[in-house]
């Protein structure tokens, strides 16, 4: 199989490390060669962060470059827009519609672009947008946005439910497992 590329983007601290860990674990158990590249350090302090997940028969580079992503999984809509050029023609966007103002917007030095989902759709991007924050709260914690998104992403993967559950169990601390399973289910059943 030709290597598939996923980028997970968001704001530092939103939980992309856990999402990539769960996804990587899942794909490993499907028998793929997998590489995941993470961001640690300063960018995690509220900066724009990007995590790469690649899988296939044989994966060399751990990173995804412009024009190569099959999926953009995004925690925040401005970040979706920022990384659009990484998407392949016909690539799929799975995004949270939450808006988090970056500092230049907070200080008034820049404006947060409006109607981003609509603009992306008009530009021909395949956008699956949803309010993950509400669903995460419904599951019991606003921190579960990452798992809601994975639930939604699961629609696009030819992997059975049990394998996703197994990967959640292997990577989420036991005391948060029920909450995260609920978040996954809410994300999955949201469309």
């Amino acid at each position, binding site marked *: 199989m030709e290597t598939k590329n996923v980028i997970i983007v968001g704001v530092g601290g939103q939980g992309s490390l856990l999402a990539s860990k769960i996804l990587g674990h899942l794909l490993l158990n499907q028998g793929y060669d997998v590489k995941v590249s993470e961001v640690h350090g300063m960018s995690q302090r509220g900066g724009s962060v990007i995590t790469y997940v690649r899988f296939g028969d044989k994966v*060399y580079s751990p990173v995804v470059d412009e*024009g190569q992503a099959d999926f953009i999984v995004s925690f925040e809509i401005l970040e979706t827009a920022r990384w659009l050029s990484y998407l392949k023609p016909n690539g799929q966007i799975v995004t949270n519609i939450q808006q988090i103002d970056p500092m*230049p917007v907070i200080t008034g030095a820049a404006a947060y672009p409006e109607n981003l989902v609509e603009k992306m759709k008009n530009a021909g991007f395949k956008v699956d947008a949803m309010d993950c924050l509400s669903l995460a709260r419904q599951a019991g914690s606003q921190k579960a946005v990452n798992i809601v998104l994975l639930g939604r992403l699961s629609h696009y993967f030819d992997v059975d439910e049990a394998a996703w559950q197994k990967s959640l169990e292997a990577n989420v601390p036991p005391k948060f497992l029920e909450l995260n399973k609920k978040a996954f289910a809410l994300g999955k059943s949201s469309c």
Partner: protein
Amino acid sequence: MRELMLGNKALARGLYEAGVCFVSSYPGTPSTEITEEAVKYDEIYCEWAPNEKVAMESAFGASLAGRRSFCGQKHVGLNVAADPLFTMSYTGVNAGLVIVVADDAGIHSSQNEQDSRHYAIAAKVPMLEPSDSAEALNFAKLAYEISEQFDTPVIIKMCTRVAHSQSIVEIGERAEIFKPYEKNIPKYVMMPGFAKKRHPVVEERTKKLIAYAETTPINRAEIFSDEIGIITSSTCYQYVKEVFGDSVSVLKLGMVNPLPPELIKNFAAQVKKLFVVEELDDVIENFVKSLGLEVEGKNILPLVDEFSQNLIAEAFGRKIPAGKKLADEIPARPPVMCAGCPHRGLFYSLKKRKCIVLGDIGCYTLGAVPPLSTIEMTLCMGASIGATHGFNKILGKESENKTVAVIGDSTFMHSGMTGLANVAYNQSNSTVIILDNSITGMTGHQQNPTTGFNIKGDPAGKINLEALCHAMGINRVRVVDPYNLKECDTAIKEELAAPEPSVIISRRPCALLKYVKHKPPLFVDAEKCIGCKSCMKIGCPAISMKDGKAVVDATQCVGCGVCSQLCPKKAFASTAEV
């Protein structure tokens, strides 16, 4: 067993399997997780040392005592530890000693982009360079064999993309190694008479290591084409394979010091055109040129930043995919101090007093970005205090009443103390602010000598900063709470005015620490808010303006209350009170 593993975790697994018993490191991105993963093995004693030099010396002592030992750091950490490294090359080791240096091409989380391969060359020690997690594990084990076989410390060079990428590894069993210590003064006492005799030993060892490099399986030629041959190592190997697959020949170097001249010449003879693909400096390329070979490298590839598959494809004249964008301007999202960060109030107070702030390495370096824009210099660990001393010595009264050094608790213990010793000894009227957030923050919450806990979170020795500063000869030492703006302002004003050196300890734990109990979020009473933006001056990511009024993002706010102290209309209130 097949596992998906972070490069740093795989390296730690390699340490475990190699029988390592002692790890001493100082945290630094992208090296930190090696030590954090190693501590999970009960068989390995692990510690955070106050700095890299102490860590490396401790690892040396453990090697002398007979157990395989390890010391990890980021690239700039090796600058600090260079002193023991250069002479350990002369003494050699007893049990194996391996050093990791993790470079940060692309400057993801560093103050520079230096290429650590120069250290291996200058110190004349072997350097291995893994290209993925499986190699990180296997090279760690091999490095101990090389260390003991050739009686030398061995450096493993990681980079951000190997350290922080997960790939598949096979794990194995642990070996136990013990080599009883034997007194050997001419080998281990590096005074001139003995050191002079050790230098030729080093040169002889290098010759043997070159012979080893010629045949070691970690340097391998993958011959697929007689047209193009690419010499490469580390993560660049992965990019080269990504772009070219098996359509070009590749000489993959797992050992980058010393380099194997015959292997390179043989490889060059099998291809029509020879290239070197290496990030940062032209180390391999210059060596290849010194062999009299024609080679291309930095004429088509940059000396700066990290590489990727697209960058290499483009350099070789291949078409790369172009992605589509929206027409909108996308505002940048630089990292910021977290909501509730205790540094914020202190920086606001410094800005208000128009202080010249010479900074240091840590989360608080973010005090340099808008809207605080307060820090005017950041150089290296500990430099804030030395630089403030020099600044004040030159400008005297002109700067003494407005210049401060700001330095974190961990950075102060790392190398700020010696700067303070200079202030106390040579008496500059300097004001030093220790931002004591009770943890090493930027690298992800490591304990340090001031926190009272060790790497496992167990109770440990605790250095009292106030007593330490007093003992060093600083008479004026005071503690403030950075959530209290008035207290900060008074302390800054008084200590800058004082006619002698002083230390202000700004003390409050990092807002991200799990044990910190936060207050409920605040909200803005829109009726009271006059839209004056006073609260916006602190650059809190939880506060923004909507329709001319301030609003608080309840998902981020931790109720620190710094903003409410700035509000002239008392418009902020706690959600707990409604």
